């Protein structure tokens, strides 16, 4: 690259050469990435990563719920009461997490299919992007997620 002849026949030295190089690098970056920084950093893999993420989200929320329940019961001496309550709450939290994730995933994919991957792609696990979701999964994730519109809105400004 540096051995290419300069337009000014090599009369001018160092700094001008590097300035020229900067310009060329910028131009090459424009060409390569279409000028958007957002397109980089998105890794596409199979759905395995996404599936694992869903599973760990499920287990974690449920586990935390049960742990809180058992902790409260031990403390207050009301053995099954809070365990049952927080088991249900933990399950609800787990489902909510999964629905939220699936919604973000689906939304990102709808946008990604159209070639517009600016904001939402970054948030909620660009790493686990993969194949598009089936219709059945998409429809189940819809109604409760409507309350979470603000969460998705944040992604777009990201």
């Amino acid at each position, binding site marked *: 690259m540096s051995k290419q002849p300069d337009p000014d026949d090599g009369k001018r030295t160092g700094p001008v050469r590097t300035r020229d190089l900067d310009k060329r690098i910028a131009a090459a970056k424009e060409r390569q990435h279409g000028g958007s920084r957002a397109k980089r950093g998105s890794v596409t893999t199979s759905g395995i990563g996404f599936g694992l993420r869903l599973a760990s*989200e499920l287990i974690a929320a449920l586990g935390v719920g049960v742990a809180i329940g058992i902790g409260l019961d031990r403390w207050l001496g009301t053995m099954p009461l809070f365990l049952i309550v927080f088991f249900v709450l933990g399950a609800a939290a787990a489902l909510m997490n999964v629905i939220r994730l699936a919604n973000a995933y689906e939304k990102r994919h709808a946008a990604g299919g159209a070639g517009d991957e600016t904001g939402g792609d970054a948030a909620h696990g660009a790493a686990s992007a993969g194949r598009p979701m089936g219709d059945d999964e998409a429809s189940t994730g819809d109604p409760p997620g409507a309350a979470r519109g603000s969460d998705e809105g944040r992604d777009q400004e990201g």
Partner: protein
Amino acid sequence: MAEAQAATNGGAESGGGLELHPLAQFELKTYIPIHIGDLNLSFTNSSLWMFIAVAIIFALMTLPTRGRSYVPGRVQAVAEMLYDATANMLHQATGRDGRPYFPLVFTLFTFLLVGNLQGMIPGAFTFTSHIVVTFALAIAVFVGTTAIGFVRHGAGFFKFFMPEGAPLWTAPLLVLIELISYISRPVSLSLRLFANMLVGHTMLKVLGGFVFALGVAGVIPLAAQVAVTALEFLIAVLQAYVFAILSCIYLGDALHLH
């Protein structure tokens, strides 16, 4: 015939001489015992590989960039790509406000990335396969982002636990669910990385054991072994990336309250 004989021989071998311990790779070995009070601060193989990871990162980041050449060499290009990828990731998740936290995210990402990749060296210890390590990092991120949220928004941070537009009477239930969901973040963050590393490395060892146990038929698990090894490299990079990007997203939540 010969194949069957080899198989039985191999089977006998694995039963007798060649013993397989797929989980032995996760054992902690104390090199230098250090006990302060009740604290066990011994220098173990885990600590050793952490030090090696830090040394690798330090070497990668300082030595090739010493020249600061405009046309980066190979190693400098690696360092710059890592930096660039982390900066993009942070910028996308948190915007401008996230800039001050770049060192934290970059440290986390490179530490986990090198730690995961180190595990692919035969005989190396994968410190990310211990939940103590991953949970400590995750809880640090959790406490840190929560503190940032409270510092920036004060009591307003509690709005985070009440979804906008939900009717008020659902508040007690929703807040509890949101709270559990929020607390589950460090658990799922650490669980994912730890489980991926543990399962992957155990699988490698078990498959490797089959190669010897099956004799000539061992080419089948050997082929699987090759594929799984490639997959493990992918997972090593991917899980470090996921950990880092989720940290960024949690940081973004704390900064912007979605």
